[in-house]
C-alpha cells in the first residue's frame, strides 16, 4: 500500500477540518439565532448567510477533489456492514453539505428576501412563492437537525476508530505520524 493512499491528501484534510469548523459553527449559529431577539441575532444571521455560501463553494470543491483523489481504503478488518455505514455516512455528508446552503438560499429567494454576499446581491434561485418558502424552510430546519445528528455519529465513530479500534482510520484525516505502515 503506498504511503499516499493511507491518508487523505493535504487538500482534503485542510478542507475537512476547515469545513468541520464552519459547518459546526453554522449549526450552532442556526439554532442560536432562532432562539434570541437580542442584537446578537443580527450578527448571527449576518454570519450564517455568507458562511453558508462559502460552505457551498467549498463543498463543491471538495466533491471535485474527492472525485479526483479518492479516499484511502477502509481497513480490511472492518466488517462489511461497518464499511457500508461509513460510506453511506460520507454520501449523506456530501448531500447535506451541498443541500443545506442551497435550501437556505432558495428559501430566502422564495421569500423574496435579498441574499447579500460580500456587498453584492446574489440572484434569486427560485421564484418568490409562499408555499415553496414554507416547504424549503421546513426542509432546511429538519435537515439541520439531521446534519447535527450525523455529526454526532461521525464524531463518535471517529473517536471509536481512534481510541477503541485503533485501526488507523482516524489518522487518515490527521497529519500525525500514523501514516507509516503498521
Amino acid at each position, binding site marked *: 500500500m503506498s504511503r499516499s493512499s493511507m491518508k487523505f491528501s493535504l487538500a482534503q484534510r485542510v478542507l475537512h477540518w476547515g469545513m468541520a469548523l464552519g459547518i459546526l459553527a453554522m*449549526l*450552532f449559529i442556526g*439554532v*442560536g*439565532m*432562532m*432562539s*434570541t*431577539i*437580542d*442584537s*446578537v*441575532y*443580527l450578527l448571527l*444571521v449576518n454570519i450564517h448567510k455568507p458562511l453558508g455560501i462559502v460552505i457551498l463553494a467549498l463543498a463543491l470543491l471538495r466533491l471535485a477533489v474527492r472525485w479526483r483523489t479518492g479516499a484511502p481504503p477502509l481497513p480490511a478488518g472492518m466488517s462489511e456492514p461497518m464499511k457500508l455505514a461509513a460510506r453511506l455516512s460520507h454520501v449523506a455528508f456530501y448531500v447535506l453539505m451541498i443541500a443545506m446552503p442551497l435550501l437556505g438560499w432558495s428559501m430566502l429567494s422564495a*421569500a*423574496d*428576501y*435579498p441574499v*447579500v454576499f460580500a*456587498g453584492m*446581491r446574489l440572484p434569486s434561485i427560485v421564484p*418568490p*412563492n*409562499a*408555499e415553496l*418558502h*414554507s416547504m424549503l*424552510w*421546513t426542509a432546511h430546519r429538519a435537515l439541520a437537525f439531521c446534519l*447535527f445528528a450525523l*455529526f*454526532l455519529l461521525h*464524531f*463518535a465513530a471517529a*473517536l*471509536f476508530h*481512534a*481510541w*477503541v479500534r*485503533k485501526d488507523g482510520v482516524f*489518522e487518515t484525516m*490527521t497529519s*500525525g*505520524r*500514523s501514516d507509516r505502515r*503498521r
Partner: protein
Amino acid sequence: MKKHQDAPSAGLPIVVRLAAILCLVIAAACAFAYAAGWLTPARLTPTKIVDSLAPPGGPVKGFRRNHAKGICFAGSFEANGDAVEISRAPMFKVGTYPVTGRFNLAGPIPTMADGTGRVRGLSLRIQAADGQEWRTAMINPPLFPIATPKDFYELQRANANKDDPSAAKQFAASHPSLRAFGAWAGTAPFAESYAEDRFNSLNSFVFTNAQGQSQTVRWSFIPTAAVVPVPPDELKKRDPDFLFKEITERVAAAPQKWKLVVTLANPGDPTSDPTKVWPDDRRQIEAGTLLVTRIEPEADGACRDINFDPTVLPEGIHTSDDPFPAARSAAYAVSYDRRTAESSHYPRTQAEGKP
C-alpha cells in the same frame, strides 16, 4: 499494536474509552441544546414574542401575527438627492425607485374595524437598480410606548393576564413611557385617510455617507394632504373598512404623496430608546417624496408575501444601538414562517376571477 497519539488512553480499559466517547458526544449534544435555548426556558425567544401577540382565540391563520389587516400598494420613491450628504444608500441619489408597500392597522385580527385601529402602519420596500433594498415598517404615533423588546413582551403578558386584572395597571405604573403614549392615543385625531397620516420609524438607524461619516437618524413620512379628523363619536358608525375604501378611491383619483424627512440626532440624544422623542430643533433633511399610485387588495397584492423586515437595509444604512430592529427582525421571521405555512387559510382570489 503500537500507537502514540492516543497515549492518554493507551492503558485504559475499553469500557472507560467507550464511556469517554459517550461523554464527549453527550457534551456536544448539550452544547447544541444550550445554543438552541432548550436548556434555558426563560430565554426570550422570537417565538414567545409572536405567541404573546395572539388574540385570546388564537392567531388568525395565514395572516401576519400583528398588523394583520392591511392593503397593498404600488408606487415610487422620488429622491431629490439631498440625503446623499448623510447616506450612500443608492435610493437617496436623485432618481425614481419602485416601491411595494402596505397600509395596515396594528392588531392581530384582519377583520377588525378600521375605526378601532388606534395605531396605523406604513410598510415600504424601496428597490434600487443594483438589487439593494430598503425595507421599513413605520407607525403613526410620535413615540413608542415601550423602551425595550423585553418590556414589550412583559406588556403583552400583562395585558393578556385575565387572572389578574391589576397586572396591566401595575405594569403601566412602573413604565411611565406608557403614559406619554396614552396621552397621544387619547387626544390625537383619527385622520379620515391613510393619506393624511404621518408615519414614523421611531427606531433609530445609522446613516453612513460616501466619506464614511456616520450619523444616527430617525425618519418620518409626512403626508402632503391636510389632516381631516373623523369625529370620535362617528368612528364607530363608519364602515369597518372605511380606510381601505377611502384610500382605494383616493389613489384611483390621484397619486398620494408623503415627504421623507430624516431627523439627525445630536450627540447625546437617546438613540436606543424609541419612547424618547428628540427635541424639535434637530436638523432635518428632506430626502424625497413617496408616491402611492395603485392600491391592490392584499389577497392578491404584491405586499402580501413580503416580510417588511426593518433590518433589510442597503449599504449606507445600518442598525443602531436601538434594540428593537433586531427583535422585530427575529419576530417577523417567525410570523412569516408561520403564515406562509398556512397559505391555504388565506387563499388568493385571483384564481376565482376576482380583480
